[in-house]
């Protein structure tokens, strides 16, 4: 394989497709830490010139981790629709970009092609896109899912109610849940990150949140973001689980570091279908984030964007209700500043939608990243403009358990009001019913957690 181009008279040559993909990536500190990033801005563009001419078939045939060595690669490749693949395999990545952006191409056509894509193809085209390309491309692809609520309809923005507590106090979690609900947060899920991953604790939180949902007849689903095996055990013992959660990673080795495998998640998915109390047909909630494979030393020399795209291709296997990229949580050694974090969020949303999954974003940062709450709010506007399906809701953006900053309970209603977006339809009707939302904005009753002490 010969992969080279001239640029301003200089010759740039790349040894492998994996190298082209890595060097074509936007600047990310994680790729630099891994020693695989472009050495100069010119080399980055040279890699893109080459990538734009690569046929999609070559990306399928050269996965960043070989088929025989990696069950993630196998799960993705085995799921490719061969009939549609025959139609698109000759397209170059550059042509693919223009096809997606063309006004003649609609959401249904893209969703059909999604079934023939691998993570390498999805990441490849994202690398050729500018930020506004990612917004335009992401926004035109509609992925609608259903658990108890309908997620992903154009013009909606959902919010996960994330009422974490440092030591999992049931009273504390309940109080924060009320606060979030009073702002209209919780249509995506009422989802708690536990500090104690035991079956008993996870079950208690599931029972408490299910009780709120029943008492207030809230159209939503509950979830505790513990390890999948803990949730499976809790379900077996009768705990009321609405969505089954797990973090994913883009290589077999990285999956192992999370204590999971494709087979285990197949089992979890079957159990959720069998025991979840919700309507379905989508029962799964996954979280991902660029850099996770590298942090487990399981990146196999591949860049963090392509590994992230592989997460989405893998996630599709279990028809998730929602997936979100926890974009700024990982720290500055993977995404250095707000520029890199924002770029990654737009890439992830676009790649998820192109893959055919429902995509949200934990718009967030840590205190040692070069970012602040203004950067976060700007990204939230960008993400909502790109048609992002949901964001997080955290009391004043300050997570009392995970020690990072995310979007506040105030931010979903702010974005809804500023951009003319709506909560998910079933949940919006409920908000209007209890009187906290009218004519597309919060009423005087909203923002008062004590409202929920009335029943």
């Amino acid at each position, binding site marked *: 394989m010969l992969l080279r181009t001239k640029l301003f008279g200089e010759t740039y040559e790349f040894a492998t497709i994996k190298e082209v993909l890595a060097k074509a990536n936007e600047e990310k500190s994680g790729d630099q830490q891994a020693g695989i990033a472009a050495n100069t801005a010119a080399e980055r563009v040279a890699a893109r010139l080459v990538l734009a001419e690569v046929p999609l078939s070559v990306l399928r045939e050269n996965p960043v981790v070989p088929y025989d060595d990696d069950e993630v690669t196998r799960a993705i490749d085995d799921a490719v629709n061969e009939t549609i693949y025959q139609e698109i395999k000759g397209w170059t990545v550059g042509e693919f970009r223009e096809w997606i952006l063309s006004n003649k191409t609609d959401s249904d056509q893209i969703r059909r092609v999604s079934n023939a894509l691998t993570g390498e193809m999805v990441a490849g085209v994202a690398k050729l896109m500018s930020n506004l390309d990612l917004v335009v491309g992401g926004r035109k692809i509609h992925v609608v899912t259903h658990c108890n609520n309908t997620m992903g309809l154009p013009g909606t923005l959902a919010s996960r109610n994330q009422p974490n507590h440092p030591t999992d106090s049931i009273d504390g979690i309940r109080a924060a849940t009320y*606060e979030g609900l009073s702002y209209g947060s919780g249509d995506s899920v009422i989802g708690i990150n536990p500090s104690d991953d035991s079956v008993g604790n996870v079950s208690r939180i599931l029972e408490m949140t299910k009780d709120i949902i029943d008492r207030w007849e809230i159209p939503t689903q509950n979830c505790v973001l513990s390890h999948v095996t803990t949730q499976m055990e809790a379900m077996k013992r009768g705990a009321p689980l609405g969505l089954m959660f797990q973090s994913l990673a883009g290589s077999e080795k990285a999956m192992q570091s999370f204590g999971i495998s494709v087979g285990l998640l197949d089992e979890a998915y079957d159990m959720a279908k069998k025991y979840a109390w919700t309507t379905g047909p989508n029962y799964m909630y996954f979280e991902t984030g660029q850099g996770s494979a590298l942090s487990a030393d399981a990146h196999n020399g591949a860049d963090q964007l392509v590994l992230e795209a592989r997460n989405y291709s893998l996630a599709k296997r279990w028809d998730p209700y929602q997936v979100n990229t926890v974009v700024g949580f990982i720290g500055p*050694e993977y995404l250095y500043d707000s520029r890199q974090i924002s770029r990654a969020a737009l890439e992830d949303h676009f790649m998820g939608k192109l893959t055919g999954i429902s995509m949200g974003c934990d718009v967030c940062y840590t*205190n*040692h990243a070069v970012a602040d709450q203004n950067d976060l709010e700007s990204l939230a506007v960008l993400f909502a403009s790109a048609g992002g399906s949901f964001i997080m809701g955290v009391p004043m953006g300050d997570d009392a358990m995970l020690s990072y900053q995310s979007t506040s309970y105030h931010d979903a209603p702010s974005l809804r009001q500023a951009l003319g977006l709506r909560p998910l339809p079933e949940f919006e009707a409920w908000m209007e019913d209890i009187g906290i939302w009218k004519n597309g904005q919060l009423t005087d009753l909203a923002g008062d*957690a004590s409202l929920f*002490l009335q029943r």
Partner: protein
Amino acid sequence: MTQTIEEVVARVLAELRNEGLVPDVQQPSAGARVDDAGGLVIDLPDPTEEVHRRAIGVTDPADPDGLKNLCASTSARLGVGRAGPRPLTRSLLLFKADHGVTQDAIYGVVSEEIREKFGLFTVHTKAPERDVYLLRPDWGRLLDDEAKATIKENCIQGPDVQICVGDGLSAAAIDNNLTDIYPALEQGLKSAGLTLGTPFFIENARVGVMNDVNAIIHAKVIVLLIGERPGLGIADAMSAYMGFDPQPGKTDADRDLICMITTHGGTNPLEAGAYVVEFVKRMIKYSASGVRLREVAGDA
């Protein structure tokens, strides 16, 4: 002059409202007044004190006492209220203050004064600047060549205990806590009959640098006092990492740790000093630290 600034503001606002220039607004700030000479006085209490931090901002709650109880059940920022869909001014500014102090801690430099007070000379890791330090945690775990030479030249070899201080991710952690913890630690170790090495300060340090240090010093135990990643509102927490004969390749599993050492809602630094002494004595008694210490000492 008996007219308060509230009255002045209320009168002006009433006039403006009559002219249709402003909508109805809430009470003007209670923080400002006019002094006897007619000058404006703004003299505010500290909004980061617990009583102000936890003040309820919801207008006309359905159940005022119930709301208080809800807010008291968690450290999360509840009951903050809103202006339209946005936070109130005071909760927005408190948040900015809490984040601001984390940034000052991360990008701050440990004061010369405190280093001199405890006779600490300064060496550097392979991360020369703060931005590089944030990008390359691996370089913060390695001493640069000059540091190795300086340590070799200045330090006692093979003491029982070597104390090092590192900035980590918070200069404020060292500035605010070293004065309390250091004497307690030094005194406690000496009373236990242990010999102490020559202490020094490591700039742009990560925890793993203790491995590199002991490859030169060969102490029985290394104690590294280092600044933690600042959390919102608590920017000066320090950790004490301890290891029995740390050497390159050793990991967190080989270390013991006392974290959240701060007078702001954590372990008091004076007490922490005493805990460290107890840990060090056990490490020397059992010639082990971390997971292995728990195995050989036979406790969970």
